[in-house]
């Protein structure tokens, strides 16, 4: 008997605990959607209210076990999203969350209003790893008050599930996790990329045109597991774990560490079948250990 892999995460029932991470699956329309049965849901590429061109190349650079990216949240803006993509999402048999971004709490809120009740949009993932322009460019995600303010601003504008995606560059992720939980988040996603830099030894300048970029991929997995675990210990809402997942064992580490579901990001670039392989590998693990459902997987989650 194949084990029951469905999960309930922050207001959404998913047939699989494996989602596609924002920015690593486009709008779901670029690549033929094979093996959908394995896909619990998709988070679309991060969007701002207005269209954005993104940063000049080079935008990516490979690093040991990972990659840096500085795409600059290139995207078509809310109107085009609603016009071009949402109608297609409405036909799919898995939920699509929109990763929303802004330069102020008000901008996030406006985006939520614009996208709320649009058929095809099943929920929001708030990306709080954005610079808060009103506060001198400090990241929302580094400051519990700013993170909570953004969460609350969105929460008030929509009845759809609101997930908040945490930034890892904090000294205590539990503080931020609790702040956004109190502000009404339905789930947390941990984590976004770490800021990194790579220097070109011909030009003696950063390799990325944006100078810094976000580190993703297997290199960050042990850090991500730790942060997702810390977040899960701090709150009662579900935590979706991500960061460096490339195979089922990686995903199982997050699940055992207290996550309810996982997202696969960079791995999809390398292996277009990654999500299906992660899903099938989790199912195989459960079967091999004699568990009938993912809910039976033992967790390691001592409470704070």
């Amino acid at each position, binding site marked *: 008997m194949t084990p029951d892999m469905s999960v309930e995460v922050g207001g959404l029932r998913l047939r699989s605990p494996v989602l596609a991470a924002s*920015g*690593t*699956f*486009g709008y779901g329309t*670029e*690549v*033929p959607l094979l093996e959908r049965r394995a896909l619990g849901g998709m988070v679309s*590429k991060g969007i701002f209210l207005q269209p954005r*061109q*993104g*940063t*000049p*190349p*080079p*935008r*990516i*650079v*490979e*690093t040991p*076990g*990972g*990659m840096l*990216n500085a*795409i600059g949240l*290139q995207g078509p803006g809310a109107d085009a999203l609603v016009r071009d993509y949402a109608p297609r999402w409405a036909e799919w048999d898995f939920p699509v969350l929109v990763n929303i971004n802004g330069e102020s709490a008000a901008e996030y809120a406006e985006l939520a209003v614009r996208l709320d009740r649009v058929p095809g949009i099943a929920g929001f993932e708030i990306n709080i790893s954005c610079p808060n322009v009103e506060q001198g460019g400090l990241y929302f995600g580094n400051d519990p008050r700013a993170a909570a303010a953004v969460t609350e601003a969105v929460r008030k504008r929509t009845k759809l599930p609101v997930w908040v995606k945490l930034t890892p560059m904090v000294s205590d992720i539990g503080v931020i996790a609790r702040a956004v939980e109190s502000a009404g988040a339905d789930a947390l996603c941990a984590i976004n990329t770490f800021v990194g830099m790579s220097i*070109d030894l*011909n*030009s003696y300048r950063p390799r990325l045109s944006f100078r810094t970029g976000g580190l993703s*991929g*297997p290199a960050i997995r042990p850090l991500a597991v730790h942060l997702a675990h810390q977040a899960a210990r701090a709150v009662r809402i579900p935590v979706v774990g991500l960061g460096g997942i490339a195979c089922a064992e990686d995903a199982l580490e997050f699940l055992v560490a207290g996550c309810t579901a996982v997202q696969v990001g*960079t791995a*999809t*670039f*390398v*292996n*277009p*079948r990654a999500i299906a392989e992660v899903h099938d590998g989790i199912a195989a693990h459960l079967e091999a250990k004699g568990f009938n459902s993912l809910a039976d997987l033992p967790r390691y989650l001592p409470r704070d």
Partner: protein
Amino acid sequence: MFLFDAALTGKRQVARGMFVLGFRAPEIAHAVRAGQFVNLGWSPGPVLRRPFSVYRADGETIEVVLKAVGAGTAQLLGMKPGDRVSCLGPLGRGFEISGSRALAGRAQGAVILLSGGLGVAPMPLAARDARSAAAHVTWVHGARTAVELCSEADGDKIIWATDDGSRGFHGTAVAAAPDADLVLACGPNRMLAAVAERWPDAQVAVETYMGCGTGICLGCAVPLKRGGYDRACTEGPVYRAADVDWAALPAHLPYAVGE
């Protein structure tokens, strides 16, 4: 788009440090168009796949041509027949040849293939397609010096060019080339910028860093003259030369090696 493990079938040298690798990849050999590429991955190996133009395609086999410019290419060149790589492709939009406006209505259009260094990569397939469109093919191939010229250039007419004058024309391939109805070019981005000056309508295959090769990462941004970026792996890697904002496209990528 196919994804499968392909076995290395053989290797031969075509210039100093430049080798052709063959892989058993029937699906791709059948489907590939000139200018398209495959994205290769292997383990243990680099995190990301490595993109390579398809050099030739024949029955069950595809070939790629490369030099060791870093760890990934060095590892590929160290492989032995029977070793397997994961092969994703064919990717990208290739050259527009038989259907191109430049050749439309001409009995025997004149096509120039212009390659600098490793820019030979897409040319054998381009020559094949141009010939099957009944065109007259002139291949102009340039490199820094004679021993770096790919020995397998092929066409109705071949023009060699070397920066040091050690073989053929003393100067760049662009300077060595006659005019033609259709120009297809591949090579270092700064050579392609020169192509754009001379032939705005040339079709050029650019090179960028690539994260995925499938259109989802937006890492392969090509700056456009009309503003904004599109994706080398999806809308490209072949562009109308005048459409690219050459000043904004990084010029230090490794096709430059050997040129």
